[in-house]
């Protein structure tokens, strides 16, 4: 991830073939290259061998509780909106070893985890996903207790962003102010232009590393018309978002803990936790202690957790949040409202994953809108 430097952007035109060169070059520099590819009837982010792995000609159809791949008429490589799982899976893996401990003569010794073998090169990050990285950077960047693993993985990553030229039905980044245009947090950003006559990428560098790599790839200087075409396409995507968030009401959710809407959404919510697993900013984890059979070697693992489980809030005597309404309220209130108090921004970046991947199609934007509609003074002191 690049620093604060603002390279004066000189856009270049990269041909489709240059993407092979890009991936090759990143591999040669020692990066683990991850990006979108098709597997299990979805676009997923995974290791890439080359540009042929990219989801050429695939788009997606996303609605509340609905995701389908669909064939595109063109050969676009980045013609989908977002993958089910964001980059969190790489930057803050679902399972991380915190330490290993060995029994010794006097007690035990603690060994820190091995450092990451390779820095990441992220291909195809969307604006909402870069926003999510910025959010998590703050979450894991407490002045006293930062998470060194996250900070290092993000700092060492090479980020190739691809701006959206189409918006999905569950997208609402425009209303969150996080996209679809990419403004910061990338080494290279690209807009894919594909039509009958050509298939090219308008690419700009956002860091010294990015500038250097773009130079290596060659490419002609982009014409004004190319740049304009790119800007127009991204602006069009901004206007075609399927959803919008009422951010003012969203921010006020913490003032409405007794709103009747919580019970209504609880009647539909299955507390499966899908929304928290696909959310690119949800950061909660639990820990698991394991030992070998003799009990001489122990390990402590950190695993993604969800505030939708009953166990999540367990303290001696019972869980704090036993009711579905309380758990949904916790999730959405934290995400949209108290996140501002804690980290100075919303925890939502408008990617729409929680809507798409909710098995019953609960829609975070719709819930906020409903609360706005039905807003009544909070009934205090319910026991």
């Amino acid at each position, binding site marked *: 991830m690049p620093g604060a430097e603002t390279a004066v952007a000189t856009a270049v035109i990269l041909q489709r073939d240059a993407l092979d060169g890009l991936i090759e070059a990143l591999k040669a520099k020692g990066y683990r290259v991850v990006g979108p590819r098709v597997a299990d009837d979805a676009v997923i982010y995974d290791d890439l061998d080359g540009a042929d792995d990219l989801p050429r000609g695939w788009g997606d159809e996303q609605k509340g509780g609905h995701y389908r791949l669909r064939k595109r008429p063109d050969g676009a490589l980045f013609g989908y909106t977002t993958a089910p799982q964001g980059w969190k899976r790489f930057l803050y893996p679902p399972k991380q070893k915190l330490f290993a401990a060995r029994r010794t003569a006097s*007690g035990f010794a603690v060994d820190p985890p091995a450092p990451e073998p390779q820095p990441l090169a992220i291909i195809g990050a969307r604006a909402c996903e870069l926003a999510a990285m910025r959010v998590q950077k703050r979450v894991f960047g407490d002045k006293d207790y930062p998470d060194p693993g996250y*900070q290092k993985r993000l700092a060492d990553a090479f980020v190739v962003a691809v701006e959206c030229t189409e918006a999905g039905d569950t997208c609402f980044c425009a209303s969150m102010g996080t996209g679809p245009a990419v403004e910061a947090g990338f080494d290279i950003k690209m807009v894919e232009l594909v039509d009958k006559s050509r298939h090219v990428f308008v690419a700009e560098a956002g860091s010294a590393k990015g500038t250097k790599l773009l130079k290596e790839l060659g490419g002609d200087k982009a014409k004004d018309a190319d740049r304009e075409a790119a800007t127009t396409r991204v602006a069009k995507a901004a206007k075609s978002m399927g959803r919008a968030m009422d951010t003012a009401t969203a921010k006020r959710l913490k003032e409405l803990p007794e709103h009747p809407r919580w019970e209504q959404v609880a009647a539909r919510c299955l507390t499966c936790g899908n929304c928290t697993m696909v959310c690119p900013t949800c950061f*909660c984890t639990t820990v698991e202690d394991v030992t070998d059979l003799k009990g001489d070697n122990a390990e402590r693992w950190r695993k993604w*957790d969800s505030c939708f489980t009953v166990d999540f809030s367990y303290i001696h005597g019972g869980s704090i949040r036993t009711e579905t309404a309380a758990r949904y309220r916790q999730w959405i209130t934290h995400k949209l409202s108290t996140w501002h108090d804690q980290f100075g921004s919303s925890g939502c970046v408008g990617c729409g994953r929680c809507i798409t991947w909710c098995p019953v199609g609960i829609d975070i934007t719709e819930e906020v809108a409903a609360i706005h509609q039905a807003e009544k003074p909070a009934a205090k002191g319910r026991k």
Partner: protein
Amino acid sequence: MTSMPKDPMLPVPFRIERVQRELSDTFTMEMVAKDGGTFSFKAGQFNMLYVFGVGEVPISISGDPADRSKVVHTTRAVGAVTKALDALKAGDEIGVRGPFGTDWPVEAAYGHDLVFVAGGVGLAPLRPAIYQAMANREKFGRVVVLYGARTPEDILFKKELERWRGRFDMDVGVTVDRATGKWSGNVGVVTKLVARGGFDPLHTTAFVCGPEVMMRYVAAELEKKGVARSSVWVSMERNMKCGCGLCGHCQWGPHFVCKDGPVFRYDRIADMFSIREL
């Protein structure tokens, strides 16, 4: 990147020096850093204690903050890890991460009457503040300790309470929910002792620690006596996996109980106190 910050998730090995049984299910452990280092903390803070191969629990520190040679914890064995802690003995090793969290603002209470209200094992997180107050006794008006336990057999730090009660510069009240055996002291909730007063409400700072429902009633009673909400402090308990704001488990409204608490000023959380399942 340049040098990376220290990983807050790595436990530091400590050796248990002494184990003292307090109650049938409650014990106090004194431990020292295996590398011989000192341990500094502020009254009210907690550590994450790791039992090799079993797991980790957040436990308040119950020792004297002026004594940096050791760290002292008083624990009730109620879960898998605390029961495993209970099985350890002097010479065994334990992992420590911490200290974490906010503290009882003892120094900010200089000039005030100081009222400690504790319920059950809640006396343990208050004890460091009581030590600190008594080490600076001349800085305060009255020092009042009000303590409630379930039965006479459940009175924590009984000898120490008796010793404090014998002092001319401390007022100590003890009550039990249910009298057993030859108990002829107070019976009833600790709130009743608060109602009796014995402190100047306008110049009182109160530190309250116990079950949430007890703290709620005590805070209300203190308010009724005329103590400002902003002079009352409570210590909260929530599920914690990391102790330092990374795991998300202890969220309570806008707060992380582990780093914004566990000690909160009552006026800042009073509205949240009465919201069910928040």
